[in-house]
């Protein structure tokens, strides 16, 4: 409690110093500061940027953890990070990359791009959007504070009991995992609901479902997956928390519980989670490939259909993570065939991408390079996925480096490649500037080559008998040279990422503004200025078909036809409540981690008081008048 007060006072002092001292104008100055603006914003673009940048920050942390692991494994019987330390690294690497890097970066891009693509002025619930971001942020912060206060979790990103139970893991690490994920999970669920409501309700006139850009479609299916996949995780985490904090025995076999129940709950969430992070990647690739081939997406309707089928089947296959649990040949066979079936719609997508490029005019700008690198890489991850679906073969692959290779081919070769493609592609819409193309190409080639050098040998390491999650291996069993190769490959990925970071900094410093439509784009986001004004569209656009903006350009029109007269635009007001509410969740989470229930109660009280305040707040938002819109548009033209 004392610590809390000290921190609060310190924060106030810092704010006072940064804004130039405390006097009666203090609050005014705080309210007009940039920091306050970002803390309280409900603008989907700013929230998207915060999602993307904090996701990227966590990507760097998770990457550093991976580098440490590859350093340890570079030679047999190395003693750099052994035993428990290595287990902490592998746990935090996996958890960070999935929950704090991949998902937030995807949410970031969806947040910025999806409303623009459907011609909306914001998401359906801007307040909820901000709350979702801050819940994720504080959850991630809580999880990573474990490194400093009490020790990081060490039972793997899957955190299987009994290893994750109090009896075998008395430190606070697993509590950090449980509470950190629970809090950031609240954010993910909110985002899912929000995106669904936005896509269903806020499409501009003419934007029917079958005219929606592919990225919006994949965001839509991903959001539906979030809606159904997050609750099992929430339940699982809650049961694990009760086992650890309050002494229940859901997963403790000594008291009649079952550790297998956790595996079911985790993978009923965990498998759809894979599609949550890969479907938007498919969407990004579809947009990039279509734009840089100067061609309409081949087989659009079957692409949509394939996306929906993948999303649906994603819920039917979780047992393929549990083939060796001993559930019997019947359930193994059923889930094997269901898993193989996913290969079919995924194949449809790959062939449609290839035939989108067929006959097109391929411009190899950086986003397109990532997309072109993605196709063979992802196909390799996909075919090993089908191989893993064969239960008897999986008895060999399971929990070996083969699996490590497979899911890195899908998650890095799929999701991370797509995130980089999306970053280069939509950077102008996010920041109003173009990332440097030459540095981008360096980034791509170094990362691409390093990536394959790192992960391709790991298939063989697995088949040669190396289990995953081991901090060392013995000399003389044929594992040395491939491990060495794999560690060397990591250098390429590190260099690539450093170049990307330099590119980001260089672009932020440059004064050169991007045009509204730098790539000859096809969808609505390219019809508005870069960076996008806070109201997105001065007048909502009228959509006449798929690739709406391209159609207008081909018809020789200057821009989109308006679907409404110029009028005052209603905007939601910024709010500090999401930050306070998430801070409450953070305090409550920390209370449970420290097994200090009074602190947890205070945190929960903060959450409920914030809810109460919000519920009784008379907030009607504000309007931007037409004169202001026209004025700013003219100012832009004069500048240009």
């Amino acid at each position, binding site marked *: 409690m004392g610590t809390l007060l000290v921190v609060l006072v310190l924060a106030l002092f810092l704010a006072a110093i940064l804004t130039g001292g405390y006097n009666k104008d203090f609050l005014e100055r705080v309210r007009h500061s940039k920091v306050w603006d970002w803390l309280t914003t409900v603008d989907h673009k700013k929230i998207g940027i915060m999602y993307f940048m904090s996701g990227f920050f966590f990507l760097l942390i998770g990457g550093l953890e991976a580098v440490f692991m590859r350093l340890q494994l570079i030679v047999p019987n190395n003693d750099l990070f052994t035993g428990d330390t290595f287990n902490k690294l592998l746990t935090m690497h996996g958890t960070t990359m999935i929950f704090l890097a991949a998902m937030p970066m995807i949410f970031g891009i969806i947040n910025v791009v999806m409303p623009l693509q459907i011609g909306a002025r914001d998401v359906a619930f801007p307040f909820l959007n901000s709350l979702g971001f801050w819940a994720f942020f504080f959850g991630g912060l809580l999880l990573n504070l474990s490194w400093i206060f009490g020790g990081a979790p060490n039972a793997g990103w899957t955190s299987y009991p009994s290893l994750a139970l109090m009896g075998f893991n008395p430190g606070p690490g697993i509590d950090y995992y449980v509470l950190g994920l629970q809090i950031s999970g609240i954010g993910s669920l909110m985002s899912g609901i929000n995106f669904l409501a936005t896509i269903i309700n806020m499409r501009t006139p003419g934007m029917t479902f079958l005219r929606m850009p592919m990225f919006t479609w994949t965001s839509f299916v991903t959001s539906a997956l979030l809606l159904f996949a997050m609750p099992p995780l929430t339940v699982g985490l809650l049961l694990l928390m009760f086992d650890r904090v309050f002494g229940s025995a859901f997963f403790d076999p000594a008291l009649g519980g079952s550790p297998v129940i956790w595996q079911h709950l985790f993978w009923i969430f965990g498998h759809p989670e894979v599609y949550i992070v890969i479907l938007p990647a498919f969407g990004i690739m579809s947009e990039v490939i279509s734009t840089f081939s100067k061609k309409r997406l081949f087989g659009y309707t079957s692409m949509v259909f394939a996306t929906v089928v993948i999303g649906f089947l994603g819920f039917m296959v979780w047992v393929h993570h549990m083939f060796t649990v001993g559930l019997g040949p019947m359930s193994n066979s059923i889930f094997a065939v269901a898993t193989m079936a996913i290969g079919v719609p995924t194949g449809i997508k790959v062939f449609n991408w290839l035939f989108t490029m067929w006959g097109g005019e391929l411009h190899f700008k950086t986003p397109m390079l990532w997309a072109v690198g993605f196709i063979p890489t992802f196909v390799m991850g996909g075919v090993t996925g089908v191989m893993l679906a064969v239960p*008897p073969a999986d008895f060999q692959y*399971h929990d070996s480096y083969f699996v490590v290779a497979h899911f890195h081919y899908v998650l890095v070769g799929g999701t991370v490649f797509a995130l980089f493609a999306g970053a280069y592609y939509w950077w102008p819409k996010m920041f109003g500037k173009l990332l440097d193309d030459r540095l981008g190409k360096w980034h791509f080639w170094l990362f691409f080559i390093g990536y394959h050098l790192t992960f391709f040998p790991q298939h063989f390491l697995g088949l040669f008998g190396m289990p995953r999650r081991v901090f060392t291996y013995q000399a003389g069993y044929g594992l040395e040279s491939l491990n060495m190769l794999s560690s060397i490959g990591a250098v390429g990925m590190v260099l690539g990422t450093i170049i990307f970071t330099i590119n980001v900094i260089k672009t932020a410093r440059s004064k050169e503004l991007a045009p509204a439509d730098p790539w000859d784009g096809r969808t609505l986001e390219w019809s508005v200025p870069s960076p996008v004004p806070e109201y997105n569209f001065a007048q909502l656009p009228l959509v006449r078909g798929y690739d709406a903006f391209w159609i207008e350009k081909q018809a020789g029109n200057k821009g989109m036809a308006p679907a409404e007269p110029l009028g005052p635009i209603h905007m939601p007001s910024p709010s500090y409540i999401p930050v306070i509410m998430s801070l409450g969740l953070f305090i409550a989470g920390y209370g449970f981690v420290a097994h200090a229930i009074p602190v947890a109660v205070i945190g929960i009280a903060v959450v409920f008081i914030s809810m109460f305040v919000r519920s009784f707040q008379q907030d009607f938002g504000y309007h931007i008048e037409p004169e202001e819109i026209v004025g700013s548009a003219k100012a832009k033209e004069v500048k240009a």
Partner: protein
Amino acid sequence: MVSRQHLSRVLSVFALVAFLLAGCGDPRLNALQPKGTAGEQQLDLIMLSIYIMLFVFAVVMAIFIYVIVRFRKRKGVSRTPKQVHGSTLAEIVWTAIPIILLAILAVPTVKTTFNLGSAQPKSADALKIKVTGYQYWWEFEYLNANGKRFKTAQELHIPVGKKVYLEIYGKDVLHSFWVPALGGKMDVIPGKVNTMWLDAKKPGEYQGKCAELCGAGHALMDFKVYAHEQADFDKWVAQMTTPHKPTTVAEKEGEKIFKQNCLSCHATADPKIKGPDLSKFGTRHTIAGFLPKNEKNLEKWLKDPESVKPGARMPKINYLNDQEMKSLMEYLMNSK
């Protein structure tokens, strides 16, 4: 003629891949050079799926390379490509062909799954072994080896050419029992009994691994499988079931020290903290499951187990004087 040429080219690619796959790795640990029936069946499926998938990958790559070479933007030429919507026929083709390929894979998959899944012995005198995983070591209890019942640890001995039926128990956290060169793995789950069968077609030493993250010492939770000809196996069983009698003075002294200091964990019964049965320690080939067996390693292990295997639950035996330590080690090394 062309097709035959093409076929031979494809086959040579496959042969190259097979060579690459089998060429590296160590035969004691390599899932690609199986020495048991289960492993062979699994490898058959692995190879079948690799071939089908290589075919798919080759088709995709052929189209891919053609497309990015043929349709890249050329300098000085600018054109607006025809905006094609798609092709129903093409969609049907690349839906139907993968379905057929997957069906080809699915049939043997289901067959082998059921074959490997039935791990109940048909005859009563089949060799049954109870495997128990502990942090971080393995216990093997022979239930009816030549009519005898006994326990050992870290080293599983089996007769060549006979199916061995394993009942897999867990006592603390999850583990996974894996012998890559003989065939696949099965999870160790407290509160659940799993079964699997194994056999070895050739005598030899095979390396076993724990494949499920089980704590700090997970990476070192190794064990060995030794496959013997039936006669050698019978000899081994006889040796294991004949109690060891210390002969020298030092050994007798060592036995006394062992009984005073070690027996509370290393007993045949199930105490609270359980260590491996050491009554036949002299027959083992390793210390702690992975270090070569010699006095130096044994002393290192006894004096500080944690430094050898992180998370090991054995306390440090660093309070004995040199003479006592020597006697204890002599007793252990000779208890055959």
